[in-house]
């Protein structure tokens, strides 16, 4: 195998075509959405999906989205921000602290904790939603923001990720050196370890943000009050308006609302991407 290296990879037509097809498959729905947000409701139903048609009504659609039902969309947007900042933010903090602790300290019961966490990863969150609902209703927490935030704080997968990452990214030698120099554990964590952990933290934060942003089933059963809904649930409500007695189809607003809903996620991804990529190869090369 001469002549090929990381910088000059071997070319494969098959692989290129296959990946190209996958790329188109992934991008196509987004392209369809970009064209669809510029259409009125009747045009949306009657025109070809992958090109413009009729009057350019993107701005009218946006206006209709933010003014429908007394601007409830903006309220949903604000709610989602709260759920993400408090829920996903909290989940990241907890996962980082716990993952680091499990990776870098030896203490009694550590293996038991670890077994529980690995077990927790195997249980899909949806399966826990109903038991959580019954528990919360006994505590009088249903139909409050806490009902969505508290379960979002727990991220076994994030914790597991941070444990793996901490074990690799924070050499024990550095911690020992810090201890010798008289630094306390907290100070070491905040001044040294956190910086080394940054790529891992960003990765966990990304997962948590996306999971909270898209969370559907939990808010669905926990919340009755539309004023507490996150975006996903609100958009679903608008979509459901198209069926049954008294139906008022507003597919154009659902699509425009969806477009506005994914924008922040796209921005978050673009901003955090460089941290994230730099973390992917961490620990892959022994210095």
């Amino acid at each position, binding site marked *: 195998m001469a002549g090929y290296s990381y910088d000059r990879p071997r070319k494969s037509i098959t692989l290129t075509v296959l990946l190209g097809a996958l790329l188109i498959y992934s991008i196509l729905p987004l392209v369809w959405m970009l064209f669809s947000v510029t259409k009125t409701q*009747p045009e*949306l*139903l*009657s025109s070809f999906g992958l090109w413009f048609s009729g009057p350019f009504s993107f701005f009218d659609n946006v206006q209709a989205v933010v003014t429908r039902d007394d601007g409830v969309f903006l309220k949903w947007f604000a709610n989602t921000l709260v759920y993400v900042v408090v829920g996903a933010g909290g989940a990241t903090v907890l996962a980082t602290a716990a993952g680091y602790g499990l990776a870098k300290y030896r203490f009694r019961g550590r293996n038991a904790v670890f077994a529980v966490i690995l077990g927790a990863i195997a249980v899909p969150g949806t*399966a826990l939603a*109903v038991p959580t*609902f*019954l528990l919360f*209703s*006994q505590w*009088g927490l*249903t*139909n409050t923001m806490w009902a969505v935030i508290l379960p979002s704080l727990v991220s076994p997968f994030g914790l597991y990720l941070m444990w793996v990452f901490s074990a690799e990214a924070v050499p024990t030698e550095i911690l020992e050196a810090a201890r010798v120099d008289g630094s306390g554990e907290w100070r070491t964590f905040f001044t040294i370890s956190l910086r080394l952990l940054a790529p891992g933290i960003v990765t966990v934060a990304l997962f948590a943000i996306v999971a909270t942003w898209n969370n559907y089933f939990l808010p*669905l*059963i926990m919340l*009755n*009050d*539309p004023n507490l809904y996150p975006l996903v649930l609100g958009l*679903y*409500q608008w979509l*459901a*308006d*198209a*069926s*049954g*007695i*008294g*139906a*008022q*189809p507003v*597919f154009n607003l659902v699509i425009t609302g969806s477009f506005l809903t994914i924008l922040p996620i796209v921005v978050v991804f673009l901003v955090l991407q460089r941290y994230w990529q730099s973390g992917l190869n961490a620990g892959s090369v022994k210095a």
Partner: protein
Amino acid sequence: MTITRNRRVALGALAALMAASLTACSGGGDDGGSGTTEGAGADEIEAALQEGGSMTYWTWTPQAETQVAAFEKAYPNVDVTLVDTVGAGDANTKLQNALAAGDGVPDVVQIEYQSIPQFQLPGQLVDLTAFGFADLQDLYTPSTWGAVSQQGIWGLPQDSGPMAFFYNQEVFDAAGVEVPTTWDEYIDAARKIKEHDPKTCIGNDTGDAGFTTSMIWQAGGTPFQTENGAVTIDLADEGTTKWADMYQPLIDDELLCQLPGWSDQWYGALNDGTIGSVALGAWMPGILEDGVPDGKGKWRVAPMPTYDGTPVNAENGGSAEAIPGAAENKLLAAGFLKWLNSSDESIEEFMATGGFPATVKQLESPEFLGYESEYFGGQKINEVLAAGASDVNEGWQYLPWQSYANSIFADTVGQSYLDKSSLLDGLAAWQDENVSYGTEQGFEVNGG
């Protein structure tokens, strides 16, 4: 297939859990609903409304907001919190959850006619007989009253959905087809429309539980019967078989569009004339006007096709409002409910934006019958729709777990649509699933 089976097991387990938790933590406020001791006359109810208080109303009715505003104006001391429960399916889940949890239960709640037994049989609804609501019987059409009153009064009807045949005149004219008056003519028309333009079809159906049960109802079938807690399921009875035999050629010869109802493709197909007709409840005109603007002036309505020329009809959709046994303020709830579904003011508010009422007075009013719909090319549509309300077959009942039954419809009868196999086999599979589910739920079930 395995996935749906697993999901079904999970759902069954979920339902069992719900049932278990229901008995475990339904403490307080739940007096079984079947033998309510609190009763009150009209004067007491009126006094409670004057005195006021706060209550919660769960509904997905688009007109609810204006109705509640009008109510609060008439009774300024009552504060009604309105919760939009989106749609019937989610509303059932929400109510089930709230009842299971024993808190956050609404005082008045919208329930589809087909889901009333689901909440009434476990004793989760208040029998409104104690509030003197039996006197209101004559206000409503027999079929809607029948839907809320089985060994008690479990709600007051809000709307009705006597079926009618809505068709696009332009599509029918292009294919040279007359409006079918019998199902045989309907099948002929379906063939002609398909021959005229293979892209078009007379209707669409991918297997819809609500539509199918209404069609069986129209054919005179009574596949579900509940008496003293014992459920009989016979999805091969005379009426059911009659419908399946009539409908089979439509599936075998691919005469219907394979489009699920209410989807964006469905609205699109109605707009561009791909689908030439729909047989649905009398609430359909408002949806055509809103969702099918391109059909303006082209659509008409006719009575449902029949089997032998005798007018016969069924209800499709519609709901009542009920009071859960766990409601905190039953007296206030009864007052609001009575106003909501029996006062002229409220019903007219409901009708102003396309609601189709359940009350005889409004259905027979000259103003309502004389309304000429611009969308339907000036046709007096309410004459056709209201006439359909009086031909509804009596004796129809839904299952005590109808929403679950509907959720497994696609896996059973829906398969017949997919592989063009016998509908009766699909219905038999649906029956078997329901017999075993009902038995698991602790009902006494007899299968045909």
